[in-house]
C-alpha cells in the first residue's frame, strides 16, 4: 500500500494565488447568503438551509484550503468516514425529534 501512495504523491500540487483568493471570495459571499437566508422564516427549514450552506462552505475549506482535493485517496476516505458517521448520527436523531416528538417546530 505504501508503494502505491508513493507513486501518487511524488509531485505535490501547489495551488495558485488566484485560486486561494477565489475560494476566499466564495466563502465571504456564502457567509452573506447565510445571514440573508436567516431573515426569512421557513420554520424548521431555516436550520436545514443553514446547515446546507455551512456544508458548502465546509467543502470549500476542506477541498481547497486543507488541500484535500489534491490529497491522496486515503486521507479523503479517512475524513469522509468521520463525516459519514456524523451524518448517520445526526439524521437518525433529528428525524426522530422533528417528526415524532415535535412535528410543529
Amino acid at each position, binding site marked *: 500500500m505504501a508503494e502505491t501512495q508513493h507513486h501518487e504523491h511524488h509531485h505535490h500540487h501547489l495551488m495558485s494565488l488566484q485560486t486561494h483568493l477565489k475560494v476566499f471570495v466564495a466563502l465571504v459571499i456564502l457567509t452573506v447568503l447565510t445571514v440573508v437566508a436567516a431573515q426569512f422564516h421557513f420554520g424548521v427549514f431555516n436550520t436545514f438551509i443553514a446547515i446546507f450552506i455551512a456544508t458548502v462552505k465546509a467543502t470549500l475549506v476542506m477541498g481547497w484550503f486543507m488541500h484535500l482535493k489534491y490529497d491522496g485517496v486515503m486521507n479523503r476516505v479517512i475524513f469522509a468516514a468521520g463525516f459519514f458517521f456524523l451524518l448517520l448520527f445526526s439524521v437518525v436523531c433529528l428525524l426522530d425529534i422533528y417528526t415524532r416528538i*415535535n412535528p410543529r417546530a
Partner: protein
Amino acid sequence: MSIAKEGEVHHFAHHFDDADHEYESTKQGVWLFMVTEVLMFGALLVGYLIFKGLYPEVFEQGGDTLNWKLGATNTVVLIFSSLTMALGIYYIRIDDRKKALLNLGITLICGFIFLGIKYIEYSHKFHLGIFPGKYFHAEGFMPDAPLYFSFYYMLTGLHGLHVVIGMGLIAWIMIRVARGTYSSSYWTGVEGVGIFWHLVDLVWIYLFPLLYLVG
C-alpha cells in the same frame, strides 16, 4: 524569492523510506486527529439540535439574545485567517520566507481579533447574569433558558480553546520559519498546523448560523 540564508536541512527520521513517506505519514496522522475533532464537535452539535427540537421557543429566545453582527464579523475574521494561513503555506512552498511570515503573522492577529470580539460578547453576557447551567440569574428569560446558554458556552468555549491552541501552534511554526526550518523541500509542520487552523474555521462555519441565526 528571497532566502536570506540557508536554514537547517531537514533529515527524515530513519524509520521512513524517504522524506515523502515521512510527509504523507505525518499528514495522515493529522487527518486522523481531525476526524476525532469532527466527532467531538459533531456530538455536541447533534445534542444542540435535539434540544432545539424539544424546546424551540427557548432556543429562539437564546439566539435572539446574541449579537449576530459580532458573530458575522468573527466569521469573516476566521475565513480571512484561513486564507492567510493557506497563503503562509503557499509562500513557504515557493521559498519566500518573508511573505510566509507576514501571512502567518496576519493569521495570528486574526486569532487575537476573534478572541477580542469573543471577550466583548462574553463580558456583556456575564454583566447581564447570563451564565451556564445553575449559575444563570438573568431576568426576563424563559425558565429553560439556561439550557440554551449551557450549549452556547460549551460550544463556543471549546471552540475558543481550539483558537488559543491554534494560535500557539502558529506562533511556534513562525519561530521555526524564521529559523529557516521550513522550505520548498520540507513544510510538513506548516501543513499540519494549517489543517488544524482550517478545522477551527470549519467548526465556526457551523456554529455561527446555528447559534446566532437560527437559534
